[in-house]
């Protein structure tokens, strides 16, 4: 069921099996591997895009410099299974897909997120 709208968009429940896309700047790729430091908050939560309203390519295009980025995907249930993390649909005016992962990104949480993340679009230097 949808909650009161945010930024003009209804807030919806994100199903467990749905994927979230997240941009990864190339600086967070080392020796072909994802760096755990990529999992950090911006303005209260870790910004992602819900696949219902965004493709991985669209997530990449929203980067300030798309050529410097790749995109990873996280299954919502895998994220929520990590202690103290919650996934919430937080649309913004320009992006109905926007979703936040709330909860402190401790060293433990970051390592666990790294383990459940998979590449959707590799950064250009890894192609």
């Amino acid at each position, binding site marked *: 069921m949808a909650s009161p709208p945010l930024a003009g968009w209804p807030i919806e429940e994100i199903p467990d099996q749905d994927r979230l896309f997240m941009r990864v700047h190339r600086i967070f790729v*080392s020796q072909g591997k994802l*760096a755990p*430091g990529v999992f*950090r908050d*911006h303005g209260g939560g870790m910004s992602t895009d819900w696949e219902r309203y965004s493709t991985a390519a669209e997530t990449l295009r929203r980067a*300030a410099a798309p050529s410097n980025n790749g995109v990873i995907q996280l299954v919502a249930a895998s994220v929520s299974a990590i202690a103290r993390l919650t996934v919430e649909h937080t649309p913004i005016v320009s992006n109905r897909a926007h979703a936040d992962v709330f909860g402190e990104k401790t060293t*433990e949480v*970051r*390592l666990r997120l790294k383990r459940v993340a998979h590449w959707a679009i590799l950064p250009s230097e890894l192609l």
Partner: protein
Amino acid sequence: MCPPYAAEPDSTEPSTSLFGIIPVGQEDEDRGISEAFLRQWHTRRDLLNDSAIYGIPSGALAPSINTDVFLSFLASAPRVYGLATFRRFRGKLSCRAYMKGRSRSYDFGSAEIAKGPPADTWTVPSWKNEWTAPLKSESLDELSREIQAAQKLLTLEDNWDGEGSPGFSKTTLGRAAAFLHRHMLWVWERYGVWLQAPRILPGPDGSIDMHWQTANYELLVNIPADPSAPATFYGDDYGRSSIKGAFNPSVFNLGLVTWLLRL
């Protein structure tokens, strides 16, 4: 019988040499060898001239240390001439002695364990120049390369990702490098082991991450940008055991070293 191995007096080598005795426990049986047994071996120190015996408590390594990797580190170290590991399995003690690339296995019975190492079997094998290449300098190079590679982070200015992330300071990277040198050198000087260098990575909010990863273990240490804030760490073996906490990175942390030895 397990012949003990003594460090050979050798004018081409430093006067102080190392002889490692490493009791290694196994997860499915007794974990390690009793201290009493190890002390019996230590009593033979007088036969080793200027050598030193390093016994590493089984609790520090067992049950999950990768023995082969650990031994390869030790065997490559300068001034180490002989190594022996002990394993108790199904009531039987076995000893594996390593020297100069050769490896032999011997089995003990309980009565022999009680007696300690038989002096009449002590020999001085010929093993000149078979172990070379000091590992320390190579490993220092490896660590230096990682630190050098991390210098690229210092070129990133605030908002380098277009999402408001702060840049990285030389001070923070310096604290991370100092942490690594302090702990890796301590292990080297104490045990003659050079720890694997981590990946040095960008962390959140201008912090620096140090990431160790093997097939069996993973450890993440974070040095925050705020020098007054504690460093934090988390490590696990992908299921059974884990370690986490906060610490002052400018102070030596033995607990963390114990974990690093498992990597």
